[in-house]
């Protein structure tokens, strides 16, 4: 069993490009997660992610700055093509990555069997939220850390940590999955592409905007109209679970409002709950965003462990959220 508050929580930051990786390392990330430029990672978007050469250079740069690099190979391997995912694990090991973040039993098995020295983290896409499930991954593959799905409240995370020996990592800032990660096929139902099948959610090539007779902008995904914006209002991206729908005669954000996650005010509670690492979402973000958010979190985490005031750093983060509206999500039980 771990002792809570043994040390400062680790800050795990996203990098979709080599420039973002350098920005995160410069801004004080303890660890940086990134993916290879193919379907082996859950942010498989054009213009994002790393070639093997870029990954090797990125790892070397991060290590010089005292940061670790975690490679997300967190999609589910396609039937008959598991080799591509196994090669991604081999590449991460060759590039001297500090850990691989995986969800698929096949990928975990390959890493555990062929790269026993490579640290394994269980991706949020595996949706392991009970001590029994987490122990299964720890006992079967030697997983050292689990990224928790956003279904647990802070007290539930505390009680979970008392029952497991592996480290826990939680999302604290950025995009928010409303459905349990790794257990959602809404995107493929509308578009044919989903996180589990192809590493994308609500893909941009299936998005279109049209102006209706009243001048309102209608946002569609896969041909389904799921949001609407008044003239002059900033048009949001039609992510399926954050769209507007009608049920029981009422129209509104049925699943979740267009908010982003900010668990900043809960950092102290998460630390007391025995959480090892804090994860920032946003591999699709530019280096300015990464530098700003990582810098603010660095100050907050440091002031938390030094007994300082994290207030100014919290204020700075508000500016980085989509549309300015934020939620603590499932960490507060009333969200459910």
């Amino acid at each position, binding site marked *: 069993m771990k002792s809570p508050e043994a040390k400062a929580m680790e800050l795990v930051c996203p990098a979709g490009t080599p420039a973002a990786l350098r920005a995160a390392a410069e801004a004080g990330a303890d660890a940086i997660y990134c993916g290879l430029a193919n379907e082996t990672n859950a942010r498989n978007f054009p213009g994002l992610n790393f070639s093997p050469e870029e990954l090797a250079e990125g790892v070397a740069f991060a290590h010089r700055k005292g940061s670790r690099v975690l490679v997300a190979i967190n999609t589910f391997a396609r039937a008959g093509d598991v080799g591509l995912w196994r090669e991604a694990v081999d590449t991460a090991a060759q590039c001297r990555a500090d850990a691989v973040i995986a969800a698929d039993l096949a990928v975990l098995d390959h890493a555990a069997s062929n790269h026993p020295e490579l640290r394994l983290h269980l991706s949020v896409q595996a*949706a392991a939220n009970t001590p029994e499930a987490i122990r299964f991954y720890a006992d079967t593959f030697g997983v050292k850390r689990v990224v928790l799905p956003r279904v647990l409240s802070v007290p539930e995370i505390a009680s979970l940590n008392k029952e497991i020996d592996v480290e826990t990592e939680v999302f604290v800032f950025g995009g928010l999955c*409303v459905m349990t990660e790794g257990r959602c096929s809404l995107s493929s139902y509308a578009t044919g592409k989903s996180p589990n099948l192809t590493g994308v959610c609500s893909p941009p090539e299936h998005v279109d905007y049209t102006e209706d007779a009243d001048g309102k902008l209608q946002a569609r995904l896969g041909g389904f109209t799921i949001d609407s914006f008044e003239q002059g209002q900033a048009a949001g991206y039609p992510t399926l679970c954050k769209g507007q729908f009608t049920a029981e005669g009422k129209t509104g954000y049925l699943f979740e409002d267009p908010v982003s996650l900010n668990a900043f005010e809960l950092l102290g509670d998460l630390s007391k709950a025995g959480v090892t690492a804090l994860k920032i979402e946003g591999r699709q973000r530019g280096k300015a965003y990464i530098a700003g958010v990582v810098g603010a979190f660095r100050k907050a985490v440091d002031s938390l462990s030094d007994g300082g005031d994290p207030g100014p750093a919290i204020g700075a983060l508000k500016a980085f959220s989509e549309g300015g509206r934020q939620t603590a999500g499932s960490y507060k039980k009333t969200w459910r």
Partner: protein
Amino acid sequence: MPDNPKIELALGPCFFNWSAERLVDFYRGIAEEADIDRVYLGEVVCGKRMPFTDAIWPDIMEMLTKAGKQVVLSGLAQPVNKREREILRQQAGYDMPIEINDLSMVPGRAGQEFTAGPFLNVYNEASLRLLADRGATAWCPPVELPLVSIQKIAALVPEVDIELFAFGRLPLALSSRCYHARAHGLRKDACQFVCDRDPDGMNIATLDDRRFLAANGIQTLSDAVHVAGVTSGQLQATGIRRLRLSPHSLDMVKVAGTFRRFLDGELTCEDLNAELAGQGLPGPVCNAYLAGDAGWKTATLPA
């Protein structure tokens, strides 16, 4: 040509919050009249509903078993609290067929046989093999997995029986948030079990009033009703041995009979869709996940 065994029919677990009385009546009808080989039972969506139906399952199991059906107990897909985890731990030890829908249950099963349910993320042959090594003898693939992938996996892991989700609103997502409660201005902890008002799920429409999804507590389903109109010959060629029909409020005995006639070659795929559409489906027919396309669409499937 080798004599292929007949494609079997299974009845999946009921996803919806039906009352104990309704469930007893429903399964009595299945036991007495349905041409179904295997029946999956139990609450898989919401642990809060379990106390209302706990007491009825032993009698239903006995009734179905006496009627010659193979009974399989389906486990909860997203256990969250100690009570739910304890239930799964006990069920894992039962000396009867079970379906596992969350990996929490695998260690407790300790190598005894189980069915790997559609809520597990098994997308390739290596993951299925790993579960087969731990006791999986049957597998119902995730609903978004196309037939070509299922065929590849079946060829590489032939010892596992494959059962295709073939009828019903598609189970698309789970959440920790209850959408029935949210739509009724309630919280999950004080939900008043409002999900019992929608025996096929709560209809969800887009802004241009197009039916799209259906909510069932913490679960989101499709509005459209998936119908796998794949012929027996093609199912055998794909390596599929059984079709799973997911319970809805229409006459499931009739639905099973229609599928049986389709599998026996008495109906074409068009006949199957037309007959089912006339039986009171909760939404239009869809099937395109099987062709690797968007799930709500309809595609021409291999005949």
